[in-house]
């Protein structure tokens, strides 16, 4: 019987090509219409050290990292020692006997795969051993070899005919390496249905960057920081060709300052960072909110606090996103829930920033930012792109920038417009922008700025952005935010198979909340689980301060994302 869902881990010394093996495997499988979901683990060393990349390949939709590996390809002893005990009951270890021994009493199937030796024999060098491994996996999984060869060819063609040929030989040898070995039988993947839509394979970071470009972002400034750097690098490459500009700033303060300057001057502008950088942006988030400038900040969350674990994931910046600046500064907080959603919520972030003239913080996380997945190509012609509400030039004589309105939103001007001059200041100010500290002006201004959030909250009640699924009047529900959507959905699907309906809420706008919608969701439920990747149950406590609810808190703070199984196990206890 063929498999419908398999987890493959490839581990070895960084630089030996383990990441390419898994990368090419992912791409080939996705090419042949399988669903894929990747995950990487980073070595402590700058170069070298133990690297691991995992691919989950499935005939059906796949939404989480999964738990234990069905197949571990271990290039060396460290790989075996570190990952050898995280194998599924029915799993198998393929190991290179040249660099790796199987410990006595090892409780899983283990099959020697002489990668080194094969590479030496076929190509005269050891450099192709990763291609041998790739081929071995290709045959074990029954992925069409042609798809794989195509990718190898395109990857190596720049390196010259000689190298390409050697690798093709290595591949052929690898394909038959494990022929007839009984332990590797049964891992053939069932063919998925062919897909109509054309897909791209991208990471969460790339999806965010593409979303920004699609939304019309034309200025980006940032300072390198793991795991947000790829967004800056992507922009450096692609944005100038679209007529935009990208600046590597001297630090995160300069980055956000210049983004605000560009926004003031009329550009849609963004910065991307992670925890330590977000901290440094804190003061200017207040400035932006006070002076009502559109601003998009992407926070790719990593494990904190402090420098923390830069290459590990976490959902622990929520409270900081909600409250992170001194005083009371309205802002919008969005949390995309999947790689595809990273694209769409980034577009939404720009729309909301321009519309509500305040900072929009987009919370992604390391795991979602770095893994890749295949995604249907967004249809640019059907994308809603909002432009800034600009006061009409000419009609603006006596213009008041902060004119108080019912929605709280005041039309802006941009430098260069006749008679649109005003002061953008972080001081409390009157409708024109001039400093004013009277109690009356203060109360009016605070109310005006916060009224914008009320306006948006009402809109969200009408067209809530997110999942609010009562599951046919289920009595138990799961609430999550951000990238936990996948594992939660998997857990709910498993419960359904077992005959239990579970409601699901995964709001994508975390500030403001769609209060009515959420109230309606919570009301019929006897029990709710709030699932998050942090220690202090931040979203749960945020919910408690907003609704009468006593959630069962399900938390993980290991630096790794939830798998569907983990969420299901937590759920099971309360069914």
């Amino acid at each position, binding site marked *: 019987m063929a498999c419908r869902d398999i987890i493959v881990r490839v581990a070895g010394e960084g630089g030996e090509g383990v990441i390419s093996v898994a990368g090419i495997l992912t791409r080939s499988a996705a090419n042949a219409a399988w669903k894929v979901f990747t995950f990487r683990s980073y070595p402590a060393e700058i170069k070298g050290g133990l690297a691991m990349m995992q691919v989950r390949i499935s005939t059906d939709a796949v939404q989480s990292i999964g738990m234990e590996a069905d197949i571990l390809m271990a290039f060396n002893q460290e790989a075996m020692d570190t990952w050898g005990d995280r194998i599924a009951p029915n799993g198998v270890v393929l190991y290179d006997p040249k660099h790796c021994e199987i410990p006595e009493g090892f409780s899983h199937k283990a099959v020697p795969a002489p990668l080194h030796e094969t590479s030496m024999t076929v190509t005269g060098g050891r450099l192709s051993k990763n291609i041998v491994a790739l081929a071995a996996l290709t045959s074990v999984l029954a992925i069409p070899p042609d798809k794989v060869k195509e990718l190898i060819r395109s990857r190596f063609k720049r390196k010259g005919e000689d190298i390409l040929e050697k690798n093709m030989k290595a591949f052929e040898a690898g394909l038959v390496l494990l022929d007839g070995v009984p332990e590797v039988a049964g891992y053939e993947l069932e063919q998925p249905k062919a897909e109509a839509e054309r897909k791209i*394979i991208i990471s969460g970071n790339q999806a965010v960057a593409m979303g920004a470009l699609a939304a019309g972002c034309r200025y980006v400034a940032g300072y390198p920081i793991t795991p947000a750097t790829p967004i800056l690098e992507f922009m450096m490459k692609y944005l100038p060709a679209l007529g935009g500009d990208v600046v590597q700033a001297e630090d995160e303060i300069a980055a956000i300052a210049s983004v605000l300057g560009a926004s003031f001057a009329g550009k849609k502008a963004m910065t991307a960072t992670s925890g330590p950088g977000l901290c440094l942006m804190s003061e200017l988030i207040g400035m932006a909110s006070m002076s009502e400038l559109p601003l998009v900040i992407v926070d790719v969350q990593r494990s904190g606090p402090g420098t923390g674990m830069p290459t590990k994931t976490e959902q622990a910046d929520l409270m900081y996103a909600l409250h992170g600046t001194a005083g009371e500064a309205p802002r919008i907080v969005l949390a995309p829930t999947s790689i595809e959603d990273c694209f769409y919520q980034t577009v939404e972030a720009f729309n909301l920033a321009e519309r509500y003239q305040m900072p929009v913080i987009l919370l992604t996380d390391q795991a979602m930012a770095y893994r890749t997945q295949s995604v249907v190509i967004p249809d640019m012609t059907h994308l809603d792109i909002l432009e800034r509400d600009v006061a009409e030039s000419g009609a603006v004589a006596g213009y008041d920038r902060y004119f108080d309105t019912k929605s709280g939103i005041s039309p802006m001007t941009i430098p260069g*417009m006749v008679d649109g001059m005003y*002061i953008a200041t972080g001081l409390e100010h009157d409708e024109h922008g001039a400093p004013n500290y009277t109690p009356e002006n203060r109360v009016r201004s605070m109310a005006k700025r916060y009224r914008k959030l009320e306006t948006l909250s009402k809109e969200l009640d009408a067209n809530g952005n997110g999942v609010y699924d009562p599951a046919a009047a289920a009595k138990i529900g799961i609430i999550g935010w951000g990238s936990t959507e996948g594992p939660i959905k998997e857990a709910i699907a498993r419960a359904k198979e077992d005959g239990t309906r579970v409601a699901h809420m995964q709001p994508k706008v975390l500030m403001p909340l769609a209060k009515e919608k959420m109230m309606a969701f919570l009301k019929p439920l006897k029990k709710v689980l709030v699932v998050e990747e942090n220690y202090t149950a931040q979203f749960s406590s945020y919910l408690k301060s907003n609704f009468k609810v006593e959630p069962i808190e399900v938390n993980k703070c290991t630096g790794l994302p939830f798998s569907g199984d983990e969420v299901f196990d937590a759920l099971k206890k309360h069914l």
Partner: protein
Amino acid sequence: MTQQTMLKPKDYKSEITPIWCPGCGDFGDLAAFTQAMAAMEVDPKDLVIVSGIGCSGRFSHFIKCYAYHTAHGRAIPTATGVKTANPDLHVFVVGGDGDGLSIGGGHLPHAARRNPDITYLLLDNGIYGLTKGQSSPTSPLGMVTRTTPFGMQDPPLDPVLMFLSYGFTFVARAFSSNVKQLAQLLTEAVAHKGFSIIQLISPCPTFNQVVTFDWMKAHVDPIPDDHDPSDLDAAFRLALDKERVNTGIFYRTEAPTMEEKMAFQREESAKREPGTVDEIFQEFLL
């Protein structure tokens, strides 16, 4: 210039009355600034002044312009964003010695490297004015302030020397009382293609009793006529000679502006990379 009639200096004043103390050096700077704007016929609609926090930081409020009064020390990166977003604007930065040399000092070397076409007036009064009299990085040795009750122990920074070492393309010093020289200098600074930076000594009669107008008048001198502002070595020599407080242009050179470098990168990117988002998607096709 879309305005029908020529604007006079006073037409550049906003409706907000300066909150400065009577006799503050900053008034001279304001006067020179409006004169220069009028002389250069700058259209207020194209004028952006980004200012930091301080007495000096209020400068932008008092001019008819698009004013951006940002957080303490962040005027330079803010202005960089403004200028990049719209190179057609006349962009100025105004701020104090605390704003520019203390909390904001880290941004200076990078402004020099990027060289956007911006003019920066660093209003140096050797004191923290707005917070009522604490020491600043240019407070003279020994000066008693609210935070140096036993006299300032650390030597002051030398802004001009620092600016030269950063590679700024236009480096000058001026004195707020010499409004005419300053107005003239401002027109040259604006005419300069690239970042022009001016240490503009503007005494604070309220909190600085050491570097006063009188002291300045006794020590200030224009840079000697024979100084060649294109000679970097000479500029350093002049800056290192601290007998007198020289005013005028220490150094001026040509280098690609940030806007030019951005344009170059757009061209290069356009040569190699897709020109639409749809085409970018194609690059990531399975």
